[in-house]
């Protein structure tokens, strides 16, 4: 009998997880059921991370395993089933800052959690965020910045989004470095993520995903 996919993925046993998925697919299991199990496992991973039982590399490792599961399952999915279900998220490192690794981790975790991520890169001009919101109607925007100089860029970007009449329909999270409530209030963002998992949780909450 196949081992429990949810528990095995939550325990980050990559080889076993992939073997279970292959076995299930061969046996004709519903691919959406496999993804649902994987989703539950990722919730457990998130809980373990919040309790400091897992660390950021574990989180990223779980995402990489999930990505491999998606690759195995994808050919078996219908077009509808294979679509991104989390909605669109625009993300970028604000103008003046060129740090990318934290942003890339958030992009990756959002992607494996079913979001359609528009990654604008680093040192993103303020107008680029405004234009991309207009083009995509993305309801969620993530502004990343590692240095203290990024706080002013975040504030100016949010002000420009507001001036363009887009703020009411756009939830904005900030992250990177040592962001606090005070900095969040200064920039005018709706929330901040102290790590990638919080970023995913915020995007899920705003997208109405449990």
């Amino acid at each position: 009998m196949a081992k429990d996919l949810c528990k095995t993925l939550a325990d980050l046993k990559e080889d076993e997880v992939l073997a279970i998925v292959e076995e299930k697919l061969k046996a004709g299991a519903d691919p959406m059921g496999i993804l649902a199990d994987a989703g539950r496992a990722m919730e457990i991973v998130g809980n373990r991370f919040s309790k400091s039982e897992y660390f950021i590399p574990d989180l990223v490792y779980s995402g990489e395993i999930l990505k491999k599961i998606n690759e195995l399952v994808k050919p078996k999915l219908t077009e509808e089933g294979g679509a991104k279900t989390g909605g669109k998220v625009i993300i970028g490192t604000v103008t003046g800052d060129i740090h990318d690794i934290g942003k890339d981790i958030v992009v990756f975790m959002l992607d494996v959690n079913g979001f359609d991520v528009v990654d604008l890169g680093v040192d993103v001009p303020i107008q680029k965020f405004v234009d991309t919101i207009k083009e995509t109607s993305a309801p969620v925007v993530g502004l990343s910045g590692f240095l203290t100089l990024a706080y002013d860029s975040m504030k100016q970007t949010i002000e420009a989004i507001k001036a363009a009449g887009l703020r009411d329909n756009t939830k904005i999270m900030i992250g990177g470095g040592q962001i606090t409530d005070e900095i969040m209030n200064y920039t005018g963002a709706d929330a901040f993520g102290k790590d990638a998992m919080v970023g995913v949780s915020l995007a899920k909450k705003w997208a109405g995903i449990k």
Partner: protein
Amino acid sequence: MPVINDIRLNLKKNDVLRRQGFKGYTRIRPEIKTLVLELLESTESTRLLEPTTAYEFYPITGMEPDRVLLQGGAVVNGSLLPSTFPDAKELAAIVCTIGPGLEKQVTEYSRGGETLRAMLLDGIGSAAVDILVQETCRFFSGEASKRGLQASSPVNPGMPGLPITEQRNLLELAHAGDIGVSLTSSGVMVPRKSTSMIIATGPEMKTWTQAEICARCNLRETCPYTVLRS
């Protein structure tokens, strides 16, 4: 201009893991430990780390409450140096970098979807800069000792009393361009895995440990990189 490029970085696994935010080394997954070791080896075999330090010593000609005057007319603004090292005889303006190779590889891993590798390698780069700073401080301690002086612990732009706006001045004083380090228009150092600092030398200079810095930092409870909970 003086450049040190024969610095041996003896990177230890624990230094690297601290830079990944791990707080309990025993709970790290074997897969991740293995990957860290593999990446560490790759940095040696592929020359991803090119540790280099550029510096210049400046005799101090005057000390005012909010600035230090240096021989040749240069000035370092801020109250930190005069208040912390009032007896300093000279300042060393220093810039250290591990070069651009590692961060290019990190970007390649990220673009290729290898996020875990990218993240761990980035952490190795940060740990390498930490060790480079330690080795550089050791060098300056030795240099000061040869002249019967002591070297202080390093201070960095952005610390209270040493404005971040002094960064551009410091890079010029250290001749950072000689080792390929520059600032973007917004003041970010390129390569990113670089750091700048000032070390004061004199008859009796203050020194402190990383643990003491962490203990006094207002982010000590939440900082994932603190040495206090290692």
